[in-house]
């Protein structure tokens, strides 16, 4: 079983309470089951009695985890409960035990159209659906000038996160071919999940893309706005902070353009991303994502007037949908201040 490769996390997390305050989902459902410790304990139980893996409650718990990676970042030994949950999802899929709703989401991801590449230039920008919907993609186009753009497809990260590893790898191979056939040296993305996919997940799948990969904020690091951005609340991306070692470029870019950044919320440990780490949590459990968004809204200093900036198009989309917060992606803010 895939979970067997995470025995160390099972045996560490089931006896540890040190990151329970960082369980974004647990902090809005208030249930013990939505904490790393109890999830690891339940999975341990399934290693003793495999039929327990197929308990509907355990399955639901595993699929509604936020996968923010805050726990791993907080852990002094970086035990990987996120990896354990992803492995557990893969085991469930391989056993045909994924929930019907998850299977339907996976089917939709598999059915997504082929990537369409347009434009000219030596850089390819990947405009995924969240980047388009959030406004990040349009703003990037305004800021970046002449670039090629890939639109419409799925890279495989969503399927990978749901546990459909074989299908995810097939999509990933196609995606890499699209990138390679675009004949560019640099691929740029706004969605931190796709950045993480290219940097970390592809090697995990045994695949490789030879070009340079950048998050949009690194690519735009030369942008100069015509006015100073002023005071902003910065809301972190799970993938950039927790999966990619506090990726520094979003904040550096904002500061270079006169932003006085204030940390959003009360701390820099929790995830306020509304489930970005789980990639498609909004499709699996929309009501849960609404609760996560309301939790974020309740932590704004002045919800009516604070300007909140995030490098996560996914998070912007959820906060725009469920709250009255004024949220912008980094690209949007820069484009507005050009």
């Amino acid at each position, binding site marked *: 079983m895939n979970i067997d490769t995470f025995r160390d996390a099972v*045996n*560490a*997390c089931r*006896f*540890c*309470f*040190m*990151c*329970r*305050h*960082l369980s974004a989902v647990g902090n809005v459902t*208030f*249930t*013990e*089951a939505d*904490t790393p410790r*109890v999830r690891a*304990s*339940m999975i*341990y*139980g399934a290693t*003793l*009695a495999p039929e327990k893996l197929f*308990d*509907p*409650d*355990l399955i*639901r*718990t595993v699929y509604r985890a936020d996968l923010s990676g805050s726990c791993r970042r907080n*852990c*002094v*030994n970086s*035990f990987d409960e996120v990896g354990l949950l992803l492995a557990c999802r893969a085991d469930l899929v391989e056993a045909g035990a994924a929930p019907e709703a998850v299977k339907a989401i996976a089917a939709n991801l598999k059915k997504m159209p082929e990537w369409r590449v347009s434009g000219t230039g030596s850089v390819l920008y990947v405009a995924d659906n969240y980047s388009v919907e959030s406004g990040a993609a349009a703003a990037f186009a305004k800021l970046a000038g002449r670039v090629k753009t890939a639109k419409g497809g799925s890279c495989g990260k969503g399927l990978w996160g749901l546990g459909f590893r074989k299908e995810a790898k097939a999509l990933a191979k196609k995606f890499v071919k699209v990138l390679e056939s675009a004949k560019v040296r640099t691929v740029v993305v706004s969605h931190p999940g796709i950045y993480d996919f290219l940097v970390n997940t592809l090697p995990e799948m045994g695949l490789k893309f030879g070009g340079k990969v950048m998050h949009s904020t690194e690519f735009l690091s030369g942008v100069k706005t015509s006015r100073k951005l002023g005071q902003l609340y910065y809301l972190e991306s799970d993938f950039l902070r927790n999966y990619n070692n506090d990726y520094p470029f979003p904040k550096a870019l904002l500061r270079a353009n006169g932003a006085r950044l204030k940390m959003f919320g*009360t*701390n820099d440990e929790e995830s306020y991303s509304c489930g970005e780490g789980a990639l498609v949590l909004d499709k699996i459990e929309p009501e849960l994502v609404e609760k996560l968004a309301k939790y974020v809204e309740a932590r704004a200093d002045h919800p009516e007037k604070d300007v909140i900036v995030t490098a996560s198009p996914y998070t912007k989309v959820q906060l725009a949908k469920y709250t009255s917060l004024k949220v912008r992606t980094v690209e949007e803010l820069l484009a507005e201040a050009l």
Partner: protein
Amino acid sequence: MLVEKDSYMYEMIRTELIDVLGAENVGTGAADRFGHSVDFYWIPEMWHDRGMETPKPDFICHPSTTREVAEIMKIANQYKIPVVPWGGGSGSQGGALPVYGGIIVDTKRMNKYYGVDKESLTVRCQTGIIARHLEWNCNKEGFSTMHLPASISCATIGGFLAHRGTGVLSTKYGKIEDMVMSIEVVTPTGEIIRTLPVPRHASGPDLTMLFVGSEGTLGIITEVTLKVHPQPEAREFRAYIFKDFHTAMSAGAELMRSRLQPCAIRLYDETETKTHVRKVFGMELEQGAYLVFGFDGRKDIVACQMRYAREIMEEKYHGQDLGSKGGDLWWENKYKFFYPPYMFHLPQAFGTLDTVATFANIEKVYYAMKKAVNDNFPAARFIGHFSHWYEWGCMLYARFIFEEKDVPADPGEAAALYNRVWDLAIKAAIDNGGVINEHHGVGLKLGRFMKYLYGPAMPVLEKIKKELDPNNIMNPGKMGL
């Protein structure tokens, strides 16, 4: 389970609870019931580790208001079913385990933060808030509760109040009971009461302290006002190695008797100095006992206190100075001990023999417990450190550890061995002037020692319990009540 799930009474009770809380806030699912069946008490962890079924609650209730808690109590009294309060579930004594099934009142939805009163330096909140979240909120306003235990990330404020918890800065700022201004309580019969708004008065006995430490046996604390403190201008630590544990203890006691005001003192016995301190701090300390202390507050006062403390350590007790770096290492790594793999865990068998005594008795208690463990259980290791210091004495955080090969495979036999260690060690402590315990609470684990500890005073506690909880619904089986 007291009520069979396929009986109509089960559905009757569930329906009444849903009427109060809404369906979303009454859990009966397998995952959530399991989550409330294992806390950090070794016995249920071992039970689960060996594939055994742990006692589970029938219903998990998530109230958000005091009124809802009161309604749950009334339903529980009507049907005479147990109510077990549950905060973060980080207790090591089994205090929140639903050993007789019934209703778990999970308080975490009661997490409202009402802000700091900057004139009085107090903060008000509901008790289901996780302590780390409360601390972050206070920090944002420029203050701190100064309640900084290792379980801060998991435990709720209500959990700390329930068992008289403490934090690493207790020597200056006190335990949770020293931090409380007043509380709101729902009694077992569903009345909502508030204690007096200030903790120092001459208006009769201290009602607040009747409930603080009662571990959910006398009601549920739903709201609290706590003291807060400005963040200190300076906080400095310094560490020393003494030739042996006795000398280090004498130096620590002298520091307290000097009436300087350290915020923390911690002393590790020779064994723990050699093993745990080295493993966690990476310091090469082959012999002696490690003692660390610190001061905080105004910079000039911290410097002044540190100067006098150094005189005690160096001139009177000839401690080897590890400098501020040796002290800072402890402060920076104070929680590291509790992360895996540094923390003991199954398949080892281990326990914390938390005991508190006066300086006149503390070494006697230490050696009596050590002898009880070493003489009767040669396979066990005994280590200890002294964590929380007062003007009159300190707390012994003694631990016993059995490696996997020395723990019986049969869960019943393993539990019997475990209980036997506690029996002998705790009685040795009590017989030498120790009190069990200082901050972990009594719970299920130590309930059987309460009569031995309290003697003729125990019936007073029993009568209070009977009067407040006539149907004995509140956390039955805990604290020996």
